[in-house]
């Protein structure tokens, strides 16, 4: 009986054990003491983090709620000024860099752009006069400041250092700390990196902010370094990569060294050891090194699978597999300088080939938006917020790697995949900003339109030199597809807005073919304005072998021509009293210059900048702006200060469309949901127009004039979007 009882007891216990096993976890969590509920640091972190997140969110929300009435009251009085005369509750400005009015009109006629056609029919469609020159950083600077370049100081991507006849980035200057402390082999920077904005003038969203109107500004060019104002801003064009350049890709290859890339990229050898391929991503110079030129690198391994046409890459702690012709996600990389100093970047890997050779393309190393070593947003947390919300994204100003396509490192498909990948990220940011900015200004610039037109114009023309070898059957309707994609995006935006919102779709300039190159330095040389050292018929880059003591004019950059002026240039030869006459002389000779090969006018306009610009920074401008005719542009060599024997030559690069020509030939577009009365709108007018529509007084220094809304008998309505197909 006792035994039996015991046996029953054991059975009962076994049953309980089974039940206990099932309910062990719940019981441990719910029943026993806190000490027993502790399940190791992993779970501990999970629980703590969760409660921390809720706690912090609660605190923030509580603070926001508790202070909301006070802030609303405060804003009410401020807003009465801002919104008292406001016509719209919100303005949404979509910038499509380089969208061309003629192409837009053509595609609308063909029925490809139903949403833009709706805007045209119900609101405004017009050409938007651009800046002199028609270059993005110039035009977007004018867009945001409402002034001519003489007041915002941006004349090109590059500006000229008159002391050294060398270019420097026109938009921002980055200087390392002035003082350094030497410890052993290290030279430790002491102090902060100084980032100086070269663009002057005040963006109109600053004026809105002062009136209490919130703005979301995404990727508008020349907003690096970001400035403080009431709103959020993600910097765009001109943000450098981690090397400090405007984009340096890397081709890692097992092939013997090929030609150096002219610009925009480097080669890095891949070496095979014990069946594994080893390569590296080149980074910035080590800031702790005593002398410059000590490049930091991040090594990585490649394990190709030839049969599967894939490779496994190991970069730091990241291990991933990609197929041939496929990009990786954005991979975080960390360059270690020593003494705990690291530089944080992100890049994508594109597997080009695994057999017979191994080749991997690596994008320029972008500043990590989730861990920015340089400020790329205002507030700094905005880029972190976006990176946390949507994952890492391209932060480089010129994020689409046009150089890699030019150098045949990427093919058309790889370039398009990269460009549309960036575009997708930008769309996500735009729609987030639209959701968050129910009142105020929301503006976002898309670069895809510019880059794809630059690189694929060759397929739009029958006989573009860069596409002569491409059979017609292989030419794709890339640009048509681009415009249609943008139209669908506009349709989705139209679904998000109401009658109280003004929608504007603008571009900074249009586009034309770039079939023929003109070396202006060669023309100056052959016409006696620029002299090479004895015995030389050509120069190297950046005026190598130019005899400055016998040179009166030179050109660098895309449209600017400079006199070698005494007292300004280091080895100036032109007396200031003779300058105006010399400019007139050059203008007269250049204007209407004919390309002897085709009989076409290569230069349709020459503009003296003292007639074009007015403002405190006019003296930094080139002396003359050269307006090339349609189909022409400054040659690649001329831009880089090289003198060649030929003046005109075919442009054989994929970069086959351009806009750095006579600005009168490449106006941008203006579409809007509401009709404006202005017949000849200009990009300089947008800032005053927006301020006026929000009921704000206009600063007296504005060069632009605000547009009036066209009187309409009925209340204005935003046209319904055409559903995306």
């Amino acid at each position, binding site marked *: 009986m006792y035994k039996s009882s015991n046996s029953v007891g054991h059975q009962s216990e076994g049953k309980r054990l089974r039940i206990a096993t099932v309910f062990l976890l719940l019981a441990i969590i719910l029943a026993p003491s806190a000490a027993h509920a502790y399940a190791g640091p992993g*779970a501990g972190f999970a629980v703590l983090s*969760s409660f921390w997140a809720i706690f912090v969110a609660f605190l923030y929300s509580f603070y926001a*709620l508790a202070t909301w009435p006070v802030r609303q009251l405060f804003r009410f009085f401020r807003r009465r000024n801002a919104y008292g005369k406001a016509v719209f509750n919100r303005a949404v400005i979509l910038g499509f860099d380089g969208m061309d009015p003629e192409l837009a009109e053509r595609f609308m006629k063909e029925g490809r752009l139903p949403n833009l056609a709706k805007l045209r029919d119900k609101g405004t469609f017009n050409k938007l006069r651009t800046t002199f020159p028609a270059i993005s950083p110039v035009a977007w600077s004018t867009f945001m400041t409402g002034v001519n370049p003489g007041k915002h100081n941006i004349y090109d991507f590059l500006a000229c250092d008159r002391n050294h006849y060398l270019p420097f980035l026109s938009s921002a200057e980055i200087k390392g700390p002035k003082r350094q402390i030497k410890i052993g082999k290290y030279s430790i920077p002491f102090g902060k990196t100084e980032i100086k904005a070269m663009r002057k003038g005040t963006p109109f969203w600053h004026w809105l902010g002062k009136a209490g109107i919130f703005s979301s500004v995404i990727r508008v060019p020349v907003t690096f370094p970001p400035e403080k104002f009431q709103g959020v801003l993600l910097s765009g064009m001109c943000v450098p990569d981690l090397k400090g350049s405007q984009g340096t890709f890397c081709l890692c290859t097992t092939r013997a060294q090929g030609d150096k890339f002219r610009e925009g990229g480097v080669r890095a050898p891949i070496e095979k050891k014990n069946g594994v391929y080893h390569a590296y991503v080149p980074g910035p110079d080590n800031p702790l090194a005593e002398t410059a030129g000590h490049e930091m690198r991040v090594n990585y391994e490649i394990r190709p699978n030839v049969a599967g046409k894939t490779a496994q890459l190991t970069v730091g702690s990241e291990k991933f597999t990609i197929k041939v012709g496929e990009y990786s996600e954005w991979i975080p990389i960390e360059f270690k300088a020593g003494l705990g100093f690291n530089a944080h970047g992100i890049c994508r890997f594109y597997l080009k080939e695994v057999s017979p050779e191994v080749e991997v393309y690596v994008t320029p190393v972008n500043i990590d938006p989730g861990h920015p070593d340089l400020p790329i947003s205002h507030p700094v947390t905005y880029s972190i917020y976006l990176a946390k919300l949507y994952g890492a994204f391209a932060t480089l100003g010129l994020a689409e790697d046009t150089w890699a396509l030019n150098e045949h490192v990427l093919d058309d498909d790889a370039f398009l995949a990269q460009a549309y990948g960036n575009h997708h990220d930008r769309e996500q940011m735009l729609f987030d900003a639209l959701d968050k900015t129910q009142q105020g200004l929301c503006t976002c610039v898309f670069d895809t339109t510019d880059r794809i037109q630059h690189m694929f114009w060759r397929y739009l023309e029958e006989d573009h030199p860069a596409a002569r070898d491409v059979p017609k059957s292989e030419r794709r309707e890339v640009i048509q597809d681009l415009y249609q994609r943008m139209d669908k995006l506009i349709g989705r935006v139209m679904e998000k807005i109401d009658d109280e919102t003004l929608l504007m779709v603008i571009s900074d300039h249009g586009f034309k073919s770039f079939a023929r190159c003109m070396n202006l330095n060669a023309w100056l040389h052959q016409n006696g304005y620029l002299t090479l050292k004895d015995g030389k018929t050509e120069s190297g880059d950046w005026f190598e072998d130019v005899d400055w003591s016998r040179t009166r004019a030179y050109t660098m950059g895309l449209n600017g021509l400079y006199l070698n002026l005494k007292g300004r240039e280091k080895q100036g030869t032109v007396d200031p009293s003779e300058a105006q006459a010399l400019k007139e002389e050059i203008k007269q000779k250049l204007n209407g210059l004919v390309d002897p090969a085709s009989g076409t006018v290569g230069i349709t306009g020459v503009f003296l900048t003292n007639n074009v610009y007015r403002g405190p920074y006019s003296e930094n401008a080139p002396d003359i702006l050269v307006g090339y005719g349609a189909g022409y542009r400054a040659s690649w060599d001329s831009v880089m200060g090289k003198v060649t024997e030929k003046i005109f030559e075919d442009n054989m690069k994929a970069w086959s469309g351009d806009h750095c020509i006579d600005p009168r030939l490449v106006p941008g577009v203006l579409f809007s949901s509401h009709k404006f009365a202005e017949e000849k709108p200009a990009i300089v007018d947008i800032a005053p127009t927006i301020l006026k529509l929000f009921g704000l007084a206009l600063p007296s220094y504005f060069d632009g004039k605000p547009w009036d809304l066209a009187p309409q008998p009925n209340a204005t309505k935003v046209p319904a979007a055409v559903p995306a197909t």
Partner: protein
Amino acid sequence: MLSPLLIVVVLSVVIGLLMIVLFGYTSDQKAIGIAKDQLKAHLLAVRLYRDQLHVVMGSYGKVLRGTGRYLKLAFKPLLYVIIPITLMIVWLDRSLGLTAIQTNTPFLLTAHISDPHGKDPQALDGVTIDLPPEITASAPPVHVAADNEVVWRLVASQDGSYDVKIVAAGQTVTKSVRVTSQLAQLSPERWRDHFWQRFFSSGESALPQNSTVESIVVDYPERNISLGVAGYEMNWIWLFFILSMIAGFIFKELLGIEV
């Protein structure tokens, strides 16, 4: 003899490492990373758009939803981690959480008698104790009728492991008593039923089902570990909690494991 502080420090570091690695292997690292990032994003949104009430409230809601998603993702690795660590904590608590009986120091031993038929004032009278020679009773037993308990005040004269016999209703059951000044595995309680109490507090087999003795408890004093700073003392589990979290935090950073 190793000091308890050193043992807890070493255990915390080793277990912190093991648990982080186990968490890393058993969790969906990518999903956890995304869930955490989303949480941070919504927190940042509250700050970035603090003047816009709809954003603040919407983000707060998203934080709550995100927290739920994150805890859900942490639950699977929790299942893998919680069993070994719970067993280990229970096992360690018997050594580090309590101090063994010291010689010539009185301690209490309590027998809880079940009384299924109602309050019987006589039920406790038949309960006796049979002590080994090294342990003596220093006072007569106390009957706590309200709780059906008999409490003995005992004193040990010599270090060792002893079995104390309790006789009730003609049945004899035993309870181990450990007397030592060293660290030792202790079993403070012996239970007839009560699976969870046995699991957490007993290192002995269950009392027989037909025994009238429901539990026997030796009142081992709690051990506090001296931190060597201003005489500050702390229960080992809290020290373990803090140190293993610190170790875990360091190892998760070093190993790149998302937690």
